[in-house]
């Protein structure tokens, strides 16, 4: 194993750096500007059972050290993702990819995951439970331990690949939800998804985002993410993928010390499309600076 390699749910990654879903498309457009095979892996654009356009624009608002997005899971639906997007991805990315899945009903998650589980290039299923449950009064699956566990059980029943549950930070007790997912059979936990935020335009005196609210991400949320990764990784035995405002190689080390086995990079890709490449190339330097021989040895080491 290399100095930067880590093992995520039985699959070895050359390094722990993973572009987060929704910030990297299906990879092939980034492959035009650098060789994306240098990544640990990447999590592709959130996929749903049916095609979605998403929310009206404006979908983006700037914040101090971050941004709010309300894209609304725009994607062509699982059938088209498998038929059109994954073949294009396969031409430029030769590692196992993480398939990110969203749904608005338990059955939707199971349907989409079952399809993607059969794709050879998919290594992990990352199940985003932050979406509203249309059969549960619109409450997000990820805000209730029972609802999150129900999604995990339904997905595990129809899949064979590792299931990583991506948790929302917009909850009172993230540990209870993580533990419920673990008990329901989840193979890993990834966190944090974006935090609910809002901006108001002083000129129009209206919300900046057409959808009023959206997901806040970027360096501003990094301390919250580190705290939640620390809490969850100390409460569960399954691996944790840390994310939330990670922008530098130093941030990667900090996340791993908090307990992350691998680290996703989101908003940073949108500001600098070369962000993940730069982080990976900078990791050996910061490892040496902080006298770290092997990244896998520092996981949860704080």
């Amino acid at each position, binding site marked *: 194993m290399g100095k930067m390699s880590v093992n995520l749910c039985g699959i070895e990654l050359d390094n722990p750096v993973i572009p987060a879903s929704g*910030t990297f498309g299906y990879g092939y*457009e980034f492959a035009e500007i650098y060789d994306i095979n240098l990544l640990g892996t990447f999590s592709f654009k959130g996929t749903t059972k049916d095609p979605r356009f998403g929310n009206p*624009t404006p979908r*983006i608002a700037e914040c101090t050290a971050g941004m709010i*997005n309300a894209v609304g899971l725009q994607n062509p639906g699982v059938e088209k993702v498998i038929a059109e997007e994954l073949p294009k991805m396969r031409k430029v990315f030769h590692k196992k990819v993480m398939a990110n899945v969203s749904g608005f009903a338990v059955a939707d998650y199971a349907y989409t995951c079952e399809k993607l589980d059969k794709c050879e290039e998919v290594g992990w299923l990352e199940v985003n439970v932050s979406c509203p449950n249309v059969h549960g009064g619109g409450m997000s699956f990820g805000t209730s331990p029972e609802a999150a566990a129900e999604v995990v059980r339904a997905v595990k029943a129809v899949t064979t690949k590792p299931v990583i549950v991506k948790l929302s930070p917009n909850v009172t007790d993230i540990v209870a939800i993580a533990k419920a997912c673990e008990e329901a059979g989840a193979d890993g936990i990834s966190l944090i998804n974006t935090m609910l935020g809002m901006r108001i335009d002083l000129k129009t005196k209206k919300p900046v985002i057409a959808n009023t609210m959206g997901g806040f991400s970027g360096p501003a949320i990094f301390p919250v993410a580190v705290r939640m990764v620390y809490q969850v990784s100390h409460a569960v035995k399954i691996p944790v993928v840390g994310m939330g405002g990670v922008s530098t190689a130093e941030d990667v080390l900090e996340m791993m010390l908090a307990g992350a086995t691998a680290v996703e990079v989101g908003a940073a890709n*949108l*500001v600098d*499309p070369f962000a993940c490449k730069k982080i990976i190339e900078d990791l050996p330097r910061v490892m040496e600076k902080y006298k770290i021989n092997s990244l896998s040895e520092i996981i949860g080491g704080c």
Partner: protein
Amino acid sequence: MKQGIFTIAENIALTDSVMKMTLVGDVSDITASGQFINILLDGLYLRRPISVFDRDESSVTIIYKVVGKGTEKMKQMTVGETLDILTGLGNGYDLSLSGEKPLLLGGGVGVPPLYLLAKKLIAEGKTPTVVLGFNTKSEIFCEEDFQALGITTVVATADGSYGVKGFVTDAMKTLDYDYFYTCGPEPMLRAIYSAAKTEGQFSFEERMGCGSGACMGCSCKTVTGYKRICKDGPVLRKEEILWEK
């Protein structure tokens, strides 16, 4: 798309609120008129997308309106300072569809991308006519730049303080053209869509996240499916456009 460090060679005021900035650096990825560059500014998280006014072998020139924190910061910058910029963004105008007498219609800060377009059309032997629309005389910029290209340059002001009184669509009625290109505020684009007698291309503006196609922040619906203004646009052909709201 390329990332580069650019040095400011000029940053001057054209009107009370419109500035012209020339940046020296690697411009090799700017391949079409109607493309934009995306500028990173100290202390601001997201880049600022600004359309290309002109380019030569070693520099790119932009014209921007000071409307918020980012452009205010740009206005304060001086010659010799550097900026981290992504270049070669957006599809740009397709010249291959142009007729012999294309009409170029710009409104306010929608005017700048038409300049490089006009130069390219002239280089291909076309005879463009340009219509520049502004609210009032004091807001006019770039008229001399277009005149210096030797093309018919018509200015329209909404208050009639200079040139044709009215909107670009009023000036458009009297002109002879076989294709058109436009960039400007959405109400102007809608008016041109209704008034135009030929096919043409429209450059759109939308609040962007990344500017390079990754975040889907600036998506719109078109006849040919969902498109990202930043990557699949900002230029759409008339027959692709679906107006919403």
